[in-house]
């Protein structure tokens, strides 16, 4: 159940980016709080499924197949949402692909792909939706990133750099748009369960709450940050990680 102050009744949310983990639970949570939701990601059964899940909660939902790494297609996707729903109040950048390899073995093309999906996708959508939000002098941008944007991990170079970029984009845009009614915040994720992938028990024991997160546990923070209750909160990273980031 969503607290009264966090309801998103009649707001328009765009959930953008390719991710096995986040698109569906985030879209479902925003729709569950009352928002009309559009999801822009690579055309796939996963995208259709996410839109259907959001629709089931009662609101309107649309899927927009998009190459999120292509600025022109992203611009088009944003225009489609505005044409269909009249505006965009909330942008959630949920792009997140995993890639962990020894640094010297990473090919340039692989490096570019990780940057494209984890960082450039967010950049493209912030620019396209940001222009629209600047005109309206109102908006909420929420970037789903990772604790690895702040911490290092062996074999994580490409992922860490891309997510670090998302966190710095969050802070820089928060300041740039501070007087324009647009807040920009990030959700820092920890270790989460993935469909078809068993959790690593050693890692689970390392997490203070002794378990992996469930993807839907990201949704409630997205709703909170998307709500009118957070107008004084900007440029921040909030972690949903079972206490991981407090670890030595």
């Amino acid at each position, binding site marked *: 159940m969503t607290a009264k102050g966090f309801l998103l009744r009649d707001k328009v949310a765009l959930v953008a980016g390719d991710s096995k983990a986040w698109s569906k639970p985030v879209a479902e949570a925003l729709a569950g709080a009352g928002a009309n939701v559009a999801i822009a990601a690579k055309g796939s059964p996963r995208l259709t499924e996410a839109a259907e899940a959001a629709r089931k909660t009662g609101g309107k939902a649309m899927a927009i197949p998009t190459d999120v790494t292509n600025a022109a297609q992203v611009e088009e996707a944003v225009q489609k949402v505005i044409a269909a729903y009249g505006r965009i109040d909330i942008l959630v950048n949920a792009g997140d692909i995993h890639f962990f390899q020894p640094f010297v073995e990473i090919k340039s093309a692989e490096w570019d792909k990780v940057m494209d999906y984890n960082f450039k996708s967010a950049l493209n959508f912030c620019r396209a939706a940001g222009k629209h939000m600047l005109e309206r002098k109102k908006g909420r941008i929420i970037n789903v990133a990772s604790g690895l944007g702040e911490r290092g991990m062996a074999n994580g170079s490409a992922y860490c750099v891309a997510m670090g970029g998302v966190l710095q984009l969050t802070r820089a845009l928060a300041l740039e748009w*501070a007087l324009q009614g647009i807040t920009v915040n990030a959700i820092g994720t920890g270790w989460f369960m993935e469909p078809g992938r068993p959790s690593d028990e050693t890692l689970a024991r390392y997490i203070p709450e002794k378990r992996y997160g469930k993807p839907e546990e990201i949704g*409630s923070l997205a709703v909170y940050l998307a709500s009118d209750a957070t107008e004084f909160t900007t440029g921040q990273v909030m972690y949903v*990680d079972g206490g991981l980031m407090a670890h030595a």
Partner: protein
Amino acid sequence: MGTLEGKVIVITGGGTGLGRSMAFRLAEEGADIVVAARRLSPLEETAAGVRERGGKALAVSTDVTDTAQVNRLIEKALAEMGKIDVLINNAGIVRGERPKSMWEISDQDWRVGIDVNLSGAFYCSRAVSKYFADRKSGNIILVASGEGFRGQRNSFMYNTAKAGVVNLTRVMALTLAEYNIRVNCIVPGFVDTYEYQPEEYQKVMAAARTAAGARRLFVPVGHTGKPDDIGYVALFLCSDASDYVTAGIFISDGGGLAGGFATTGYAPVVSLKEGLA
């Protein structure tokens, strides 16, 4: 029905300012509230406001720097309300330090500043920790300040204590996680609690009421926060919506801590041609 229906929440420093607005916001969502502070009459006003919003309320005069009084507060809350679900350590003195040269600060000044802003949070959390551990469920919230992350001229005790509050959050979160106790920290920036402030600090707050004034005080969004902005942060952290959130540092400061590399509002423009020249 509210999302906090049936929850009992203890708020220290609950007579005024942020404590009072948190009490009202949480009561709106169905919580019953115990407020504690030294002075009883503001506490009674908060309690009356909670009752108007449909919640049960209890006011307990408490000095959070006195362990015996703190323990009595927890006992009394349990006796009268039957349980405690959340403790919010909000008591503190905003600045509360008269400008003094460093060499004039007495041991007593130092102790009071650290006690009220840091030790009190530890005493209260300690007092409720055994109870939370035994029932294998609990939620502790601390209130720090943006000042706990940065320096401020002459603000020795306040800034040091608030930095301590941030790390006390992390240590408690790691230690108590095995008992299913979550511990998180709210970090308010410049929030307008004018009517509760001593006269000298009211001047600072009044100056922040214009956009230019707010920017001078490092608030990029150009306006100060409302006490209810912080009430809503507390609501999120008290509710089940934050079940996997512990050791979280929830900063709501109008963008202040995201910046700090240049004066607020500074926005240089340099072309690539100039940059490469």
